[in-house]
């Protein structure tokens, strides 16, 4: 059971598609991730704490002059948003199956 849960958690964290192209400034990438997060927050009640952390860390890295690190974190945040969206989609269809009969 625990291995199954781990597999699901890992699967959800990894299956997010890479949503960014290489173009644009790092600040724009961070802005895009923030906008995606806010959009999802409006659409559903699913939000992960790790997404906010990644966005904050990206902003901090950019301020510190670490462009490469900031961009990586922005992409990570976007991936987390996509994984959250997928979770919301799966759960809207499957939660009822866990209700004992």
């Amino acid at each position: 059971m625990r291995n199954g849960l781990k597999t699901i958690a890992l699967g959800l964290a990894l299956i997010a598609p890479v949503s960014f192209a290489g173009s644009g400034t790092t600040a724009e990438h961070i802005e895009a991730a923030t906008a995606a997060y806010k959009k999802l927050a409006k659409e559903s009640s699913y939000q992960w704490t790790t997404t906010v952390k990644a966005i904050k860390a990206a902003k901090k890295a950019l301020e510190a002059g670490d462009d490469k690190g900031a961009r990586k974190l922005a992409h990570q945040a976007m991936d987390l948003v996509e994984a959250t969206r997928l979770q919301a989609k799966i759960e809207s269809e499957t939660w009822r199956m866990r209700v004992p009969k």
Partner: protein
Amino acid sequence: MKKVISSALVGTLSLGIAFGVSAGPVEDQAAFQKYYENKFPDTPTADFANGVYSILPTAREQWEAIEEFPPYEIAIEAGEAFYNKTFANGKSLADCFGPDGAVRNQYPKWDSDRGMVVTMELAINECLTANGEKPLKYKKGKITEVTAYMSFNSRGQEVDVKIPSDDPRALAAYENGKEHFYTKRGQLNFACADCHMLTAGNLYRADTTSPGFGHGTHWPVYRSKWQSMGTLHRRFGGCHKNIRANPYKAQGEEYRNLEYFVTYMSNGLTFNGPGARK
């Protein structure tokens, strides 16, 4: 990539093999309680009100020792003083909840006038503000002292949450709470039901997860981890943070509906708050 997606979906679906769609609250409740009775056959039904200590004999011994000098005792005394304190307008909480505040079994309740679930904490704050007093914060502090006093005086009352059949909004609130309980959230992809139903009694690191049957009976609690008292909604928020999901607002609609569901599932048990937990 496809393989990973398949693993996630198959894993998610496999958890529901022994489960299915239920008909309504009464049927849900019967199936819910039966699930735990089957899972923990050595636990007398009434004992589920004692949370994880109903299924863990070694921890129970320690808990019973703690209960000899309960860490929530100070909160009860402070709560009594606050309960009887006269407001600026000459009234007190006793004008809203009676002389001893033994009204635990009236909450959570469906308020058909406003179309919402009202919890005891919410009702206390509404009493305060209606009398020109400042509302209390919902997760810890003074609110836990008042509810500790009121819950202590309510010990032994039967959990009997009602879902009025003549108001579809009440059923919708119940369904919302039910969906929340069974829905996976957060980056760790856990539902309340994963820890407190499917794997209840299992170890997560050094801690054993409690059965969901009995949640809602013993609040507020003094939690050793917190080194202080806390409300049920504080605990809800802590659970969500543990699974890396953003917590909802204490006493917001989401958590009130969740409380409505989990307490309804424990109908037939007795209120035994305040409690002490690890």
